């Protein structure tokens, strides 16, 4: 039993190698950028930390920022476990958002009861939307990286069209009608500011993803297909069906993320709507080594940086956009296998077990 525990610790430690190196380099780079703007990096970073976790409001802001990223991160992670790249989180989130914006208003008379119904509808639309690249791959061999990218813009345009034409409300800000407060996800309170119970839903989603992947037949198949299509085929598992399902389930996660943004934060879908949550979900997933627990941690880091940036900009004159640069650098470095090898030697790399060397040709 203790051997298993030790193995688990070593695995976890190894899994952290890539993320920690990426984060460290990114922050060092960020320090130089701060210096270049004529500020003290320590002051800037301490303000960043304060703004992320320094007060209940700050924590609330962090949780608020992390919530959608947990969903889009899971969308990437589940697909990745099947050996698939889901770059389509952006469009999937929009599909969920427009679903929630429409049904949230339509079902508002049901009050709080409408919330689960709306989110369930997001699961359905996200699942169907996510299944499209899966079917295109399984049936026609069209690569999911390209199709999910293309579907991002199709989804965004579709949602935008619906928000601006059939569902458009009168008013200054273009977008849909506001959803009645009774039918929105309530705030947590506890001094956490605008943080809402959507965060708990995100944690629940991570648990669901974990159980799905490691405690169900379907998850067993998805992981087998992802790690070894040959062996999965040998064992009589269908590659095609698992491809479709993994992408569809991913789509459902991202869409619920969009729904939670609408029901918990904005109360409607405006145009333009939130951007880059889908793309940042990729970073979150990779930082979390495509494990649900890691996804939550990654999302908290991303959310914390975004939240702390405001405080940083307030206390120094470093623009808050710095955090976007830091996040991009983290993503840039988090799969750099050879870099880790150069820094820490081959053994560390083997320990980190980088299974990220799959590419478009797979």
């Amino acid at each position: 039993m203790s051997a298993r525990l030790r193995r688990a610790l070593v695995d976890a430690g190894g899994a952290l190698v890539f993320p920690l190196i990426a984060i460290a380099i990114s922050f060092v780079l960020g320090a130089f950028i701060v210096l270049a703007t004529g500020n003290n990096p320590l002051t800037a970073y301490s303000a960043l930390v304060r703004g992320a976790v320094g007060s209940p409001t700050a924590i609330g802001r962090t949780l608020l920022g992390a919530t959608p990223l947990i969903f889009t991160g899971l969308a990437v992670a589940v697909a990745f476990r099947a050996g698939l790249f889901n770059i389509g989180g952006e469009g999937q989130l929009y599909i969920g958002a427009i679903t929630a914006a429409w049904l949230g208003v339509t079902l508002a008379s049901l009050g709080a009861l409408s919330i689960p119904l709306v989110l369930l509808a997001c699961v359905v639309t996200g699942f169907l939307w996510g299944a499209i690249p899966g079917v295109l791959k399984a049936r026609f061999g069209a690569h999911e990286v390209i199709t999910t990218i293309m579907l991002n813009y199709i989804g965004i345009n579709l949602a935008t069209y619906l928000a601006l034409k059939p569902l458009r409300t009168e008013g200054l800000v273009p977008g849909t009608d506001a959803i009645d407060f009774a039918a929105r996800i309530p705030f947590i309170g506890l001094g956490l500011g605008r943080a809402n119970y959507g965060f708990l839903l995100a944690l629940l989603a991570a648990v669901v993803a974990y159980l799905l992947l490691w405690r169900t037949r379907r998850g067993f198949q998805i992981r087998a297909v992802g790690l070894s299509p040959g062996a999965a085929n040998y064992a009589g598992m269908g590659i095609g069906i698992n491809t479709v399902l993994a992408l569809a389930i991913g789509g459902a996660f991202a869409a619920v993320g969009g729904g939670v943004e609408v029901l918990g934060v904005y109360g409607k879908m405006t145009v333009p709507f939130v951007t880059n949550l889908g793309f940042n979900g990729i970073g979150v997933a990779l930082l979390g080594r495509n494990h649900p627990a890691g996804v939550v941690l990654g999302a908290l880091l991303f959310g914390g940086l975004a939240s702390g940036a405001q405080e940083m900009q307030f206390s120094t004159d470093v623009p808050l956009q710095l955090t976007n640069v830091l996040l991009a650098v983290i993503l840039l470095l988090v799969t750099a296998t050879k870099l880790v090898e150069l820094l820490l030697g081959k053994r560390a790399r083997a320990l980190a077990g980088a299974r990220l060397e799959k590419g478009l040709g797979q």
Partner: protein
Amino acid sequence: MDEIFGAPGQLLASTIRNATPLVFAALGGMFSERSGVVNIGLEGLMLISAFAGVVGAFLSGSAVVALGFALAAGLIFALIHALMCVTFEADQIISGTAINLLALGGTGFLMVSIFGSGGTSPRVEGFGEVPIPLLSGIPVVGPALFSQSVLVYLMYVMVPVTFFVLFRTPFGLRLRATGESPEAVDTAGVSVGRMRYYGVALSGLLASLGGIYLSMGILSAFTEGMTNGRGFIALAALIFGRWNPIGATGAALLFGFALAVTFSAPQEVIPNEFLQMIPYVLTIVALAVFGGRAIAPAAIGKPYRKE
């Protein structure tokens, strides 16, 4: 007809203007992907160059300096992508996504640092239209094709040049071979890494021409996120054109036409949003029909590691 498409001359001119950045970026993407490195960072390469060009013009007032800034920015970002994908064996798709986010975050950061606020930069002197004598006098077609910015004329030249380089030079042969089978290239004594660096670097230079044309050819200022998916449309053109310079240019023109119609067609007839979907839908259809894999460079996306 006219109510949807506007006057034919205008529509043609608008098609060319909309297609130009797509053609540049698609041709750039071709060099990268033919060498075996996926480049979904075209969007970011264009964006950073669009910004760098405006900064150059802002600082110097010279279009030549602006062009230099744009090329340098595109090249540097491309080299970062190459460093990650080739030297550090990072995942190419992740690296490309990161390049996009880096350009978005970086331009946002620098907008505030340099110009004091986000949104739109101060106006700069753009690339004006330079009518070509005689040719621009041809009715309808003349003003549309030959009364454009020098960057458009450069685009006309780049298409055959790209074709020539790719299919008629030793460099092109090596580049194509690298994307098909790095092992074979390696055993033939050609450095796979170097060819891939060249390919990605060229993609940065060409994409930067597309970027600066957006900010200083069509407009005269930089706006945050102004590429607005054009890098991905260029990627779509590259794929729809089956990784061939002529095909990609044709696809870029088609997609440029769709964008032109977006701006001229009245909303009641066809909503904008559906017109904007056209490039993406066509690409998906093309992938489904061709089967995707049979036409892409065989070794695309795979880091090459010597034993």
